[in-house]
């Protein structure tokens, strides 16, 4: 007798099909939510964007987002540069020198915690450590808050990427008489470069959209501030937040906030796609 004809088998098969349909429904629900968000972003945001959005500063009426975009760009870049130096150095120690010691385990664990720590706590920390002693909100405080957020990302990807370098390469270089630092710089880094850069790019994308850590560090401003990191600095996430809350009674500013949200999301998605493309190119 064919087993696939028995009632028991048919019951099992029906149950399986039912669960699989439920999984498909879950997938549909998940993607529906996410497409709904993107759809809202595009429909509400596109209308608010014009060339002047990118060059004019924020005003209570009309205006653009030029100073906010610039501020976000400059703070994100500064934080990425500082975070790269710290993160690559620390990640290199973890991958190349730490061995199986307790210290490495603890640092790795703490780093994993910091990787997902609430960003608003980082903002409070920098507020207490930098803003209070300095006496005013400043671009530097914002940069430091973003640095604290990007460093764990860079450490993690640096360590992971260096661990992918086969030990035989290190041994070969050592056999040729290379010193250890030289092996790391010439052999390990050149092999892991694409991966580390991908990690940095992903970190850059992540911190460029962070709002919470900037609330009490860089604050916001409606003036152009090109390089004066010692004073308050405009930035895109804070501008969006303020336009949606305390300025929400002005329809123009709400529209501008959606425009800014679209610009921010598009930039972050493009960075993410670039990072993915970049890492795939190599492998």
């Amino acid at each position, binding site marked *: 007798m064919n087993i696939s004809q028995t009632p028991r088998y048919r019951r099992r098969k029906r149950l399986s099909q039912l*669960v*699989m349909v439920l999984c498909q429904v879950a997938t549909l629900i998940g993607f529906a939510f996410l497409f709904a968000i993107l759809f809202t*972003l595009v429909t509400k945001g596109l209308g608010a964007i014009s060339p002047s959005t990118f060059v004019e500063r924020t005003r209570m009426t009309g205006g653009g987002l030029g100073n906010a975009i610039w501020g976000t760009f400059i703070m994100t870049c500064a934080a990425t540069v500082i975070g790269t130096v710290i993160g690559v150095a620390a990640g290199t120690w973890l991958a190349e020198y730490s061995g199986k010691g307790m210290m490495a385990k603890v*640092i790795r664990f703490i780093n994993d915690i910091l990787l997902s720590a*609430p960003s608003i706590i980082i903002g409070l920390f920098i507020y207490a450590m930098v803003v209070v002693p300095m006496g005013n909100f400043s671009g530097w405080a914002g940069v430091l808050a973003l640095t604290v957020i990007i460093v764990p990302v860079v450490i993690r990807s640096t360590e992971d990427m260096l661990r992918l370098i086969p030990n035989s390469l290190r041994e070969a270089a050592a056999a040729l008489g290379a010193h250890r630092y030289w092996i790391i710089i010439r052999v390990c880094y050149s092999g892991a470069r694409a991966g580390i850069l991908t990690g940095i790019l992903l970190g850059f*994308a992540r911190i460029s*959209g962070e709002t919470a850590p900037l609330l009490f560090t860089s604050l916001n401003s409606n003036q152009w501030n090109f390089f004066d990191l010692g004073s308050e600095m405009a930035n895109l996430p804070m501008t969006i937040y303020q336009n949606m809350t305390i300025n929400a009674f002005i329809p123009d500013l709400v529209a501008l906030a959606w425009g800014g949200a679209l610009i921010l*999301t598009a930039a972050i998605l493009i960075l993410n796609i670039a990072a993915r493309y970049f890492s795939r190119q190599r492998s």
Partner: protein
Amino acid sequence: MSTSNAIQASGLGHLSDATRKRLQRKARFDVWFERTLFAFAFAVLLLLGAIIASLMVSSWPAIQRYGLDFFTENRWAANVEVFGALPAIYGTLLTSFIAIVIAVPISFGIAIFLTEQCPGFLRQPLSTLIELLAGIPSIIYGMWGMEVLAPLLRTWFPTVFPAGTGLTTAGIILAVMIIPFITAVSRDVINTVPAVMRESAYGLGCTTWEVTRSVILPSVKTGLVGGVVLGLGRALGETMAVTFVIGNNLFLNTTLTGQGTSIAALIANQFSESDGSQRSALLALGLILFLITFAVLAFARYLLRNSTGRHA
């Protein structure tokens, strides 16, 4: 693998003075190189210590003044300087709980779909899409919640959501936000199951669901729970997605759908206009939030210690 020491120890006496000096210089540089790198790695530990210490120091006045009342007082009233953490803690825990309840079945469903049934040509694009969506800034989710979800809930269920905003609305937004995280971790841990196990179960005549339930899920149980707890850690500390839709009611409201507040939302709303004991009390809230998320994330890492999950 200390090459420099090896050269020195082997006593290569035939080398010229200049060469020996150069090698010694490089050996010294090697030592300093390692020390510098270690200093940066050690800075991570100092950073954590500094975060906890600075939050404790700056919240000390409030801890001293309110003591344990801080946890039992059920309102946060700045005008009379009565600060109770209960409404915010309740809101934080409840919204995260709602988020997990909604997000877990959907995320597991997506992960099972992606790993077990998805046609090959769709697998990579859908996976990438999920990962991309995890990158969308949280403020975008908050804006969407305020502009789209809250009005929808108000028109569809006017009796349950009279204002549209509230704790459940915040929970739904958090769920949407953490679905990509939990899905990505679940998919990765399910993918660690060796194909042989799957194939042998199919070979015994199991249906797809039986393979999933009896072979795959049991073997990656801890990894899946780890992913969920990681998502919980995200939800607990999330600020911008919640602030827009939680309602900002500073009095304890022990309903599921009523308006409330969370620790992160309260800090975001009040911190810049606060001073004195209010500021100190907000920093104490921050400390509580950090300790809660620390415990949750540490648990997640413990569960995920054997998995490869590289997710933030």
